[in-house]
C-alpha cells in the first residue's frame, strides 16, 4: 500500500517536473502546429467544396463522359481517404520534396495533410448537398436560375450547417494528423512530444503538449458548434 503510493507519487512527479519544460520551444511548437492546422484547414475547405460539388453535380447524369468523370473522382476520393495518414506522408515524400523543396518543417507537412483530408471533407460536403430538399432546387430552376446561381444561392447556403460541422470534424482530425506529421520531422507539438518527451524521457513535456492539443481541439469544436447554431435556422 505504502509502496504503491510511493510509486504513484514518483510517477506523478515525473509528469510534473516543469524544470524540464522549455517554454520557448513549447511556444514555437504550438505556433507550428497552429500554422499546419490553419493552413491545411483553409486549403481543405476550398478543395473539399470543389470536390463535393464535383461529386454532387456529376452524380446520376445521363451523359457518359460525366458518369466517367464521376467514377474517376469517386475512386480517387476513396483511395486517398483510405490510405493511413502515416503511410501517406511517407508515400508523398518525393512529391513533397518536388513541390516544397524540403521534408523538414511545417510547410512540408501541408501536402500530405491536405491530400489526406480534402477527399474526406469533400464527401461530407457532398452529403450535405444531397440533404437539400430537391423541391427547393426545382423552385430555383423554375425561377430561371442558372447552374452557378443554384450553387451559390441554394446549394451552399442551404447546406451551411453541414459544411461548417464537416470542417469542424475535419479540422479536429487535422490537429491529430499534424502530431503524426511531427514525428517524421514536420515540427509542431507532435514533434516536440516525440523528440523531447519520448526520446529524452521527459513526460512533463509530453503532458504539456497533450494539454495544448486538447485545448485546440476544444476551441475548434466550440467555435464550430457556435457557428452551426448561428447559421441553422431550420
Amino acid at each position: 500500500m505504502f509502496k504503491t503510493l510511493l510509486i504513484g507519487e514518483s510517477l506523478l512527479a515525473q509528469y510534473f517536473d516543469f524544470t524540464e519544460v522549455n517554454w520557448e520551444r513549447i511556444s514555437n511548437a504550438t505556433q507550428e502546429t497552429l500554422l499546419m492546422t490553419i493552413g491545411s484547414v483553409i486549403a481543405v475547405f476550398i478543395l473539399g467544396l470543389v470536390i463535393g460539388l464535383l461529386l454532387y453535380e456529376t452524380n446520376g447524369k445521363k451523359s457518359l463522359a460525366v458518369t466517367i468523370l464521376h467514377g474517376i473522382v469517386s475512386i480517387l476520393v476513396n483511395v486517398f481517404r483510405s490510405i493511413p495518414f502515416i503511410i501517406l506522408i511517407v508515400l508523398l515524400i518525393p512529391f513533397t520534396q518536388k513541390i516544397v523543396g524540403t521534408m523538414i518543417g511545417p510547410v512540408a507537412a501541408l501536402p500530405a495533410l491536405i491530400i489526406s483530408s480534402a477527399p474526406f471533407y469533400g464527401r461530407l460536403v457532398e452529403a450535405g448537398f444531397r440533404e437539400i430538399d430537391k423541391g427547393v432546387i426545382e423552385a430555383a430552376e423554375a425561377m430561371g436560375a442558372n447552374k452557378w446561381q443554384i450553387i451559390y444561392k441554394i446549394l451552399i447556403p442551404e447546406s451551411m450547417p453541414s459544411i461548417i460541422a464537416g470542417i469542424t470534424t475535419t479540422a479536429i482530425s487535422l490537429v491529430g494528423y499534424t502530431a503524426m506529421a511531427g514525428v517524421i520531422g514536420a515540427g509542431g507539438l507532435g514533434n516536440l512530444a516525440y523528440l523531447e518527451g519520448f526520446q529524452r524521457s521527459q513526460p512533463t513535456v509530453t503532458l504539456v503538449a497533450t494539454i495544448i492539443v486538447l485545448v485546440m481541439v476544444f476551441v475548434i469544436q466550440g467555435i464550430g458548434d457556435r457557428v452551426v447554431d448561428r447559421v441553422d435556422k431550420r
Partner: protein
Amino acid sequence: MINLSNVTKRFDTKQGTLTAVDNVNLSIDKGEIYGIIGYSGAGKSTLVRMFNGLEKPTEGDVSLGNSIISKLTGKDLRQKRQKIGMIFQHFNLLWSRTVLENVLLPLEIAKVPKYEQLDKAQELIRLVGLEGRENAYPAQLSGGQKQRVGIARALANEPTLLLCDEATSALDPQTTDEVLDLLLEINKRLNLTIVIITHEMHVVRKICNKVAVMENGKVVEEGNVLDVFKRPQQEITKRFIRQDTDPESEDTDLVLSQVFADYPEGKLLHLTFNGENSKQPVLSKVIRNHPIELNVIQGSIQQTQAGSIGSLYVQVTGEQVVIKDVIRDLKDMNVEVEVIEHV
C-alpha cells in the same frame, strides 16, 4: 395564351416505358384560372412541369404566347421561366433566408437592379398580407404563411402565368380557403393567368373558370366549371364532384342502398340545379302537378366562380308513366336529372 398540342411524355423506367402524359391537347386563355384535377399518378404534375420546361415533352409542343417553351433551351428558357411563377405543395422556401430574402431570390436571379429589389419585395409582402414578418425565417411561419411567401416569391418578376402544383394540399381547410381567396384576388388584380393542379374538386369549384379532368395521363373531360359540375360525363368526374358536394358520400351510398331495398318500386333521382332555377320552388311545383310521393335524401348547395350549384338526392314513388312526366317537367325547368339505377 397557352397551347398544348398532342403533348406526350414518356419515362423510361426499370419496369419499362411509363406514359405519364398521353396525347394532351389544351388551350388556356389569358386571365383564366384553369384547374387540372386528377388523382395522384394521373400525370398532372408532369403536365404542369412542361409549362415552364422543367420537363420536356417526348412528343408535341407546349407554347406560351408566341414562343414554344418545349423547344427553348439554355438562356432563352431561363429568361422565359422568370416570367412564369410557380408555387408548390411543400412551399420549397429556403430555410436559410428570411421572408424578405426569400422574396428577393427571384429578383436576384433575374438580376433586377439592387435599388428596385427591396421596394418590389416589400410591395409583394404587403400584397400577400405578411407585413411585419419580413425578418422571420420560414421555420417560424405557419403553413398558410409559408404559402403566402411562396406566392409573393412567384410574383416577384411580374409573371404572365402562375403555376400552382398542389399548392393547398398541405394546408388545412380554413387556410386552403384563405390561400384560394388570395389567388383569386391576385388573378383579378393583375389579370394573371393561373393554372392549378389539384386533387380536390373544392379548389376547382371555388376559384377556377375552367377545368380539365385527368386520368392515366389523358384529359378525359374538359370545360367550364359550371358545365362540368352540371353535366359531368365521366365516372371519375362524377366521383370528384361527389367528393366535394357530399363529403360523406359513403353515408349517402348507405342510405341510397337502404332506400333501394325498402322501396324497390320507387325511382332515385339526383337533381342538379344551377344559379337561376335553384331559387325556384321546383319541387313543390312537381309535387302539386303530379300524384307522387317525394322523399328528400340528401342535399347541398355549392358556390362556384360562375354561380351556385345545388345538388339534391330524392326518391320518387308513383306510377312509372307519372315519374316519366315528372322527369320531363324537371328537365323543362332546366334541372339536370340523373336516374340512379344502382349504387
